[in-house]
């Protein structure tokens, strides 16, 4: 059991059949998450393969989180929120500049956390890819619109993922202050890894 403060990262091995639970302790907190086959880092989570194969833009209970090789890395086996984003990607200093202006360049961002934390298991810039945003609400519309909206999560809500093979779970607890993805107030999450029964 690990409490991950806002702006910090987590990486852990979840063995096949084991689970990871990510708990939004204070509500409305984005947990940017990447998954990697622990034995083949290039067989990594693929947001667009996942979206396409389930024919839905959002993740929820039952979503199979696919890799670039179309292997099921993990299954979303519990979700008390109901809907999570995997289109919006992670924040970076550079994307903050594009979205909010030059004055945000030196604000802390998820990409730095991914790189610092991922380095512990050999995940570098080349291995980073398009992530999941648990507890984040990014509605899309039939006319092609997309927006970052107020979160749907509240204190104590959680997701639980079951590993279908040995998986590295890499999380950045998002430090974003420039949009409502963290309710304008980034807060801690808790991560609980359970070994297979």
């Amino acid at each position, binding site marked *: 059991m690990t409490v991950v403060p806002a702006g910090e990262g987590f990486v852990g091995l979840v063995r096949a059949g084991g689970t990871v639970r990510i708990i939004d302790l204070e509500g409305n907190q984005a947990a940017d998450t990447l998954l990697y086959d622990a034995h083949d880092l290039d067989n990594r989570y693929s947001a667009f393969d996942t979206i396409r194969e389930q024919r839905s833009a959002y993740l929820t209970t039952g979503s199979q989180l696919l890799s670039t090789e179309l292997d099921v890395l993990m299954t979303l086996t519990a979700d008390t929120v109901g809907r999570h984003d995997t289109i919006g990607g992670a924040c970076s200093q550079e994307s903050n*500049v594009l979205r909010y202006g030059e004055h945000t360049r030196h604000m802390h961002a998820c990409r730095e956390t991914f790189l610092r934390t991922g380095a512990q298991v050999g995940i570098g810039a080349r291995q980073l890819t398009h992530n999941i945003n648990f507890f984040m609400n990014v509605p899309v519309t039939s006319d092609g619109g997309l927006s970052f909206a107020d979160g749907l999560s509240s204190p104590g809500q959680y997701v639980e993922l079951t590993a279908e093979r040995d998986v590295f779970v890499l999380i950045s607890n998002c430090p974003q202050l420039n949009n409502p993805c963290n309710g304008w107030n980034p807060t801690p999450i808790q991560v609980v890894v359970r070994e297979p029964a």
Partner: protein
Amino acid sequence: MLVAHDVPGGAAWSVRVRAGRELRCTALGPDANLSLLLLRADDPLDRLNVPDTLKAQMSACVRAPMVLMSDRGIGLATVTGSSLDWHDALCGHSTDVHVAPFGLTSYQDVRNERRVSARAGLLSELRKHGRDRADLHGSVNLFSKVALDDSGGLARVPGWSAEGDWVTLRSEVELLVLMSTSIHPLATTWAPPPVRVEISEAPADESARLFRDESARALEQAARAVV
């Protein structure tokens, strides 16, 4: 015109393009698909980042005059125009799993008529440049539309593009452009038409700069990508 090349249906191609070029892609048959990846030629770790492109411009698809943005916040290319107002950005690219229903074929059996997925074609092009699976980011699928409903459901729109439909891209930095004309992963037939790619000097274009502040800033960053 500097270069004109017809990419046969179901094939893949890559080309290095200097900054300030126009790439005009034209469908040479109905229901075309062009799965496209962009890497910076001078710094191939900086790749087209589809999520950053979509969120910065508040769009669930690619359309003119959006700027295609990189991992490190550089405007790689501008979609300067198109006869279509929706290009799919959410469905990745076809793999052997998507080609198999139409019969995977071998070179031994059918020579160059073999059916190759977009994934296989893009990987083949990436490997020519010393790149590999780790460099395979999300692509966009020009000429294809996958409609969204208001609950987030997806359905490919068959026949979205017709012969003669076109899209123009302006390179904002020097690029490695990788493309596959294989089928869209949600296609229900194997009938990929060729796509003509014409590369020329790009005319001045202010549409993206005027479109959104985010798009304008991506172009500013492109101008100072290498100082």
